[in-house]
């Protein structure tokens, strides 16, 4: 019949992991406790705060609403894969320059959400950015600096595209 624990093979930020885990383990806990990737944060554990947002096969998902058992064979991208201190993603650079983070708790979720959003909409209006991040809660910034940072990142990424062409 069914099993209370399962084997999964997942690729996270380009690295393949094979693990045996309880069926009831949430993806958020799997990333943090099994893989020690603690950049993905757990804020509400019922899908309303967005702090746990990751990308599954390129699409954003609430990792607290996904069972690790469900991601067998899937490619996951977490905040750790976005960039490094020495090699920041334009989004990270923009958040640094525009003070888009204070305590940083919401930030990984917002960056993963913004990454997906800017891939779909590279030239957003402020209103569109506002709506895109409306599923992520921030208790520190009052959101305006976050919106400015996303718009700045969009500009940076458009400039990079132009240079490549």
């Amino acid at each position, binding site marked *: 019949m069914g099993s209370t624990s399962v084997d999964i093979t997942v690729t996270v930020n380009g690295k393949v992991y094979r693990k045996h885990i309880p069926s009831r383990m949430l993806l958020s806990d799997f990333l943090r406790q099994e893989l020690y990737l603690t950049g993905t944060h757990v804020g509400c554990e019922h899908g309303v705060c*967005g702090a746990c947002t990751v990308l599954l096969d390129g699409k954003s*998902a609430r990792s*607290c609403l996904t069972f690790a058992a469900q991601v067998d064979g899937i490619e996951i991208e977490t905040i750790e894969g976005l960039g490094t201190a020495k090699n920041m993603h334009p989004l990270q650079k923009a958040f640094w320059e525009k003070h888009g983070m204070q305590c940083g708790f919401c930030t990984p979720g917002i960056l993963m959400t913004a990454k997906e959003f800017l891939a779909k909409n590279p030239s957003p209006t402020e209103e569109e950015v506002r709506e895109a991040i409306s599923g992520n809660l921030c208790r520190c910034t009052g959101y305006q600096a976050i919106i400015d940072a996303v718009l700045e990142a969009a500009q940076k990424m458009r400039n990079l595209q132009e240079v490549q062409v």
Partner: protein
Amino acid sequence: MKPAAFEYLKPTTLENVLSLLAQHGSSAKLIAGGQSLVPMMNFRLATPEILIDINGLSSLDFVRREGDSLRIGARATHAVLADSTLVRQLCPLMSEAYKYVAHATVRNRGTLGGNLAHADPASEMPAVMLAVNATLVIRNATAERLIPAKEFFQGLYATAITPVEMLVEVRIPATPRLTGYAFEEVSSRQGDFAMGLVAAIVEVRGDLINSAAVSFAGFSDRAYRLEAVDDLLKGKKPSDSLFLDAAEAAIALIEISQDAHADREYRCDLIRTLTRRTLAKAVTRATSNA
């Protein structure tokens, strides 16, 4: 809190799923996107012993036109439906309502089928299904049955689906050309559950309303469509006072809830305002389509 332990299964065919439901239906839950179920499991408001993951069933992902109707497989995600040109053409009310459904991340995983089967009282899509006279296709291991939307939504988180059954498809008759539609919702934040919402489809002939379909959600234990409200509008000349009469008729018939988000008085006000707005907009759109 963390969810209680369960046995996990991921069948590869619909037949497997249905046979599992036949054997274990009362102790099992289906999981597709999990955007409604997993929050409940994380709170331990739902503690299924068996979790049947239907994400392996690509046969239920479809969105297609069949003759004069829109056919949507139960596993089609909100993201796909919100972006779909076919949906915009055949059921523009649904496209409009999608502006209010959750957030992009939730829409990536959440499915229309899961949303309807969960039947949250403040959810948008049940109200849309009622307004467009959708038919829900439900299967068990041996048979299939077709349920009209008005019989499907039965109460708080309660639908016509029995524990051994599964919703597999939604069928929506194409919105006739000479109709106008509108959808309005009020919530605390963009994407939150509604404090109240109204959906309306109106057909205008000459300067009279030939037919109207108005549905309400977020005000009570489920989405509602009221014959008395639709009949009140039929054959009448559109006007704000007519629309207000329709709203008052709805208020008299719906048991309006009171909670931390909105009290009864505010919800009544919402019914009045949203009914007037949606009917006015639907009539304008119907008239400009003519």
